């Protein structure tokens, strides 16, 4: 039976069919759905770990214990997990160990577009790269086999377009894998990486790469498709799909394993065609390998280094290089189109981060940010975030700036999930080395950006089972930070008061701004749209400056100022009351005032407003 499955669903399915026992991950686009899907299957333990390094260690531990295990992460997650990735390469394991790295060419939801095939080369870990959902499933199963055959972790490298594309997949049954061990191994020469042991393991690892390369010569993961002999395309992953569509008459060497490479197979292929062209996204990884083999080829001289490929890009560049394309590139004509308004992602209406950012924006303090929805606090009109590098970076960056003697008070903002992920060691460092940084933990009770996953602060597990809550305030106090305040993130006045108090000390301080994400189901049930009382609004524009998508400019003008009045879109407004608290003219009644008014005038209804055009 074939079903349309996303690449992520297919990886989960493949892991399950392969008899996986343990799966761990930290949410990150485009990898998140792998664990969400796998958690629905029986007979596999799944968890959201606190970060990717922990997730990989969890998977390694299970594989040492003789149970098949998988860890999934986005590409930059492998940076966090890199230390573990390298030692796992040295030790191998007792049962299959697979690491999924979901890369994000074109950075649809990431801070860079690093090519993690480099990590495979770097750590001497074989790397499989599927090109559609069927291969996502099949290669996951093959990765477990390969892992056990050669006593090595295996990297399954995907890209956004394989993770988030759905293609038909043939489903299979689970093959149960009885545990390979009764007891945990006591094998220090293999599993205790002191220098003396590690030195003996390194040649083993290098020999393993040669053995796998020899195996790859015959593996069905790699295949030659002979067609015309004028052009031979070497490719892998989703780039294969674009190239197959655009170059239907070319021969193809389709590599399912991109590291290590099958030298003889490549030489046979290259010898069978007149012109070798490598089609790959991002880095010239395959091209470099071919050049090292002394095989003349073209790659990045034809196709771009930056950004993802697509049929348009491949066809245009292939045609320009004189390759036999399926049809001429589409001539795009200039459309008679006005300049279009940009539509960047924004902090949602009712976002609990808005109150904090309007305060920081008003105070004009330098703010180091972090990874999450709240990074959007950088956008105008709030413009309240001045750095964002990677998970957990903000707190350390603020501390470094403070210790540099810059003279400005530094503020670090970080979400709850990101705080547990990599913020905690950085805050411990502030507590230890005593800088006067104010750390604001934006606790929206969720890992919101990736789709509202639970985290250690929510009291629930991946399977929505109750767990212990790791309370932020006692945790922070235990570090030795004495100035700690918790404020409802919708309380504008309370935030400012706490801010002033915490900043009055020349010591480390933490402000927990707490309010659940407005998009969580239980929060949605409490939405009450607010409205603007036109007679009171003067068009002063203060409410426009908080960047709420529910606050629009009315076509009505204030008679005196000739400025547009404010208008609230009732379909978007959640009733967070931040604008209501900021309005100096009491033109936006709060929930209590609305309720009182309704009790006195039960029959009224607000004028319907549309999104306007």
């Amino acid at each position, binding site marked *: 039976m*074939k079903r*349309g499955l996303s690449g992520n669903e297919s990886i989960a399915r493949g892991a399950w069919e392969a008899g996986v026992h343990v799966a761990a991950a930290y949410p990150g*686009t*485009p990898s*998140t759905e792998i664990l969400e899907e796998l958690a629905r299957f029986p007979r596999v333990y799944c968890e959201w770990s606190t970060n990717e390094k922990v997730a990989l260690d969890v998977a390694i531990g299970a594989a040492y214990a003789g149970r098949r295990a998988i860890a999934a992460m986005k590409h930059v997650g492998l940076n966090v997990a890199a230390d573990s990735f390298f030692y796992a390469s040295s030790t191998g394991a007792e049962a299959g160990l697979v690491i999924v790295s979901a890369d994000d060419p074109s950075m*649809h*939801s990431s801070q860079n577009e690093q090519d993690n095939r480099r990590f495979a080369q770097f750590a001497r870990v074989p790397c499989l790269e599927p090109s*559609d959902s069927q291969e996502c499933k099949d290669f996951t199963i093959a990765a477990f086999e390969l892992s056990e055959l050669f006593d090595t972790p295996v990297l399954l490298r995907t890209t*956004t*377009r394989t993770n*988030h*594309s*759905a*293609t*038909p997949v043939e489903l299979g049954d689970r093959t149960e894998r009885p545990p390979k061990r009764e007891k945990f191994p006591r094998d220090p020469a293999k599993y205790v990486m002191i220098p003396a042991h590690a030195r003996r393991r390194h040649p083993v690892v290098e020999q393993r790469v040669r053995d796998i390369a020899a195996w790859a010569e015959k593996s069905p993961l790699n295949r030659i498709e002979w067609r015309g002999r004028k052009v031979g395309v070497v490719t892998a992953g*989703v780039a294969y*799909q*674009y190239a*197959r*569509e655009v170059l239907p008459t070319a021969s193809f060497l389709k590599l399912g394993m991109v590291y290590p490479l099958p030298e003889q197979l490549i030489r046979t292929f290259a010898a069978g065609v007149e012109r070798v062209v490598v089609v790959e996204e991002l880095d010239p990884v395959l091209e470099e390998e071919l050049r090292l083999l002394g095989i003349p080829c073209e790659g990045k001289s034809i196709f771009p280094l930056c950004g993802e490929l*697509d*049929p*348009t890009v491949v*066809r245009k560049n292939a045609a320009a290089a004189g390759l036999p394309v399926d049809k001429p590139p*589409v*001539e*795009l*004509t200039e*459309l*008679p*189109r*006005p*300049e*279009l*308004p*940009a*539509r*960047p*992602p*924004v*902090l*949602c209406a009712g976002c609990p981060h808005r109150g904090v950012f309007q305060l920081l924006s008003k105070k004009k303090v330098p703010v180091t940010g972090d990874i999450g*929805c709240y990074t*959007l606090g950088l*956008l*105008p*009109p709030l413009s309240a975030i001045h750095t964002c590098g990677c998970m957990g970076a903000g707190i350390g960056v603020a501390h470094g700036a403070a210790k540099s003697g810059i003279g400005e008070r530094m503020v670090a903002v970080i979400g709850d999930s990101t705080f547990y992920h990599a913020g905690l060691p950085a805050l411990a460092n502030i507590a230890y080395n005593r800088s006067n940084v104010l750390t604001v933990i934006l606790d929206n009770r969720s890992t919101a*950006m*990736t*789709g509202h996953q639970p985290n250690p602060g929510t009291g629930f597990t991946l399977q929505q089972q109750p767990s212990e809550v790791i309370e932020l305030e006692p945790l922070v106090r235990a570090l030795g930070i004495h100035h700690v305040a918790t404020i409802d993130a919708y309380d504008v006045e309370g935030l400012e008061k706490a801010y002033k108090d915490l900043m009055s000390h020349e010591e480390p301080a933490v402000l927990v701004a707490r309010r659940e994400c407005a998009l969580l189901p239980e929060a949605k049930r409490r939405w009450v749209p607010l409205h603007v009382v036109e007679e009171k609004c003067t068009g002063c524009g203060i409410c*426009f400056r908080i*960047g709420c*998508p529910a*606050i*629009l*400019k009315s076509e009505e003008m204030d008679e005196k100022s000739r400025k547009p009045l404010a208008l609230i879109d009732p379909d978007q407004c959640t009733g967070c009351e931040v604008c209501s608290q900021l309005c100096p003219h009491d033109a936006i009644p709060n929930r209590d005032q609305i309720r009182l008014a309704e009790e006195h005038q039960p029959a009224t209804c607000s004028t319907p407003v*549309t*999104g*306007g*055009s």
Partner: protein
Amino acid sequence: MASQKPYSFVLVGVGGQGTLLASNILAEVGLAAGFDVKKSEVHGMAQRGGSVASHVRWHPEKVFSPLVGLGEADILLSFEKVEALRFAEFLRRGGTAVVNDMAIVPITVASGSATYPGDEDLAKVFASLDAELVMVPGERLAQEAGNVKAANVVLLGAVSKLLPLSEEMWWECLAQRVPKKFLELNRVAFASGRATVTTTDSKT
């Protein structure tokens, strides 16, 4: 199946509007009709109120690329008017644009730093592509059917009329996706969307 021709769709809108559900149903209908199907979408940050696009491709034999090339979509289905203009390049010459008559004002317009284009721009742009423009009052028809949230089903109804598949086939796929108690509502929404397209003999 060999007599059928391939179709490429691009669905665009604003994060949170329900484009993902619509592209799921479009992919399932294609599979049910015996096509090879690929669907591609983007999750994550763009879903926070940004512009979003999903691609769906049907082919009687084999789809390779999950992405539709510029100028290659047979149908551009837009949930929002300015997004139809933004992604117009995807539509092939002579294709069909199905556009929801809905404006969601971007923050850049609300804050006064940009202006929202007018309806005449839609007509001009798609005329320049020799394309047919079908405007669908999705929210209004959904409201009449009983729930404004069924606008995506109204839009799918309109698209269904442009394709050579039976209404029953669409309905079977849809019925599996919507909660039982909203079945009748969605049937009405789908039918009203279908009725907005007057000819099946479209340029598609």
